[in-house]
């Protein structure tokens, strides 16, 4: 059952990712990205990382992508007007390069299947485990991230506010 679900949602993720690039309309691209996020969440769930899966949905699909969609709607961004035709040179060079890259990557990942890789559902990444890791091993990066977010807010205010 698990491998079947894995292949279904992996396929959905890849199709959505391709659709994200191919779509001309920004809303459709954004929705494809939501599809990618959702299927990734399910892949995490299949691995047993339930907290990460829920966080993926809440943070990416539920918060970040909502803002994307919101901004696209607010700007009322329409379809791309004149789609830039890729030049024959780009096609000639790009397609073989892309295939080569995919080939190399798949070879590398095939070769490198590390010892002790996890089976489906073996990893138990509940909220407790994630929380413990965040407050022990990753305490410092976790705390600095809060400063990072503060700077992002500060930057948004500095760049966007009319009168400082």
């Amino acid at each position, binding site marked *: 059952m698990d491998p079947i679900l894995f292949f279904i949602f992996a396929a959905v993720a890849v199709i959505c990712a391709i659709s994200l690039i191919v779509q001309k309309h920004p809303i459709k691209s954004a929705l494809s990205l939501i599809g990618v996020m959702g299927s990734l969440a399910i892949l995490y769930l299949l691995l047993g990382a339930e907290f990460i899966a829920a966080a993926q949905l809440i943070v990416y699909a539920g918060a970040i992508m*909502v803002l994307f969609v919101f901004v696209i709607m607010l700007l009322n961004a329409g379809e791309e007007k004149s789609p830039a035709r890729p030049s024959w040179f780009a096609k000639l060079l790009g397609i073989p390069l892309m295939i080569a890259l995919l080939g190399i990557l798949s070879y590398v990942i095939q070769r490198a299947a590390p010892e002790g890789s996890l089976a489906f559902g073996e990893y138990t990444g509940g909220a407790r485990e994630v929380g413990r890791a965040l407050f022990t091993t990753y305490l410092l990066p976790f705390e600095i991230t809060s400063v990072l977010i503060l700077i992002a807010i500060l930057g948004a205010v500095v760049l966007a506010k009319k009168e400082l």
Partner: protein
Amino acid sequence: MNFFLLSLIKVGLVAAVLMTTLAYLQWVERKVIAHIQLRVGPSRVGPHGLLQPLADVIKLITKEDLIPAHVNKFFYLMAPILAVALALTSISVIPFGPQINVFGVETYMQLTDLNIGVLVLLAISGLSVYGIALAGWASNNKYALLGGLRASAQMISYELPLALAIASPLLLHNSLSLREIVNAQDGYYFGFLARWAIFQMPMPQIFAFILFMIGAFAETNRIPFDLPEAENELVAGFHTEYSSMKFAAFFMAEYANMITICALATILFLGGWHPPFPVELGSGYVPSAIFGMAAAIALFHGLNPARPKDRFTLPVFAIAFFGLAIAFAIPVLNSILLPLFWFASKTGFLLFLFIWVRGTLPRFRYDQLMRFAWAWLFPVSVVHLFATGLLVALYSN
């Protein structure tokens, strides 16, 4: 028993009850608002308008299914499906009662218990913005677009205080599973005060409850936060261009969201299915007493009818209530029905609160709505979360 068969039965039961509740919630709302405004409310179809929901459903199904020419068809059709599907999905993690034993089958009164039930509910409520936003965008109508924009801005803004208000009782309960959260609220202080989260030491969550309810009103786009469908500015907001069943889908989604969020409030703050005072003090007799009294009152008014037809309808109600009172008194049924009764009455009270507020409060202005969320509600919930965390940490040492 077979897991799939059992699940199927439970799904069927929950779906039937939920759908009926959805339909009748609308009837209750109209009746209550009518009485607040000194009107009668629906009373033509069936006794006291009780068949009104049925009539509405028939009307909505048989209406012409109109798709305006200028809409983006795919997303226009997807939006209501998304809205209603997400709204109905979230009920699957809500526990209605403890483990019960029906004809020798042990099962929980819950479709599925997840370790991360609370997070699933949050995720679904986060995703449900898309239904409304897409509806507004795909309609290709400026009122709908504005309604959709308002809805998404409002739901993003109020999700933060809502999530923070949820987080602080979780600190007390120390779990994300809804069933364990309810179990953590079992027991009584001094033998009579329930250990519900709103009373629980070291930090009674009464403020979190208030914050949660405010956020809940905004998340479900109810008055006083129903800006997305403010009829005097935006016609009907995001669903301006929708008719028949597609409109009904949004309608159902709104009411299903209301039910879910009230059930969540019950679970997080009001002790789920645990009675407000212990069985030793007689909480087990409360439903029987209430239904018995209701039967007596209905009988009295049936014997002294204000209107001619009351002579027939009220005694029928009296018999029904009396039947319920007896059912609650039977020990075998008692163990199943009592938790359900407490859960339903708490959730029902909160739903009544929604309706009550709708009948009494005016709508916010849009800038007030946003300022309220960011400048008041959000800081207060952050401070509350910190205070809870501090007290829990001190108390546990």
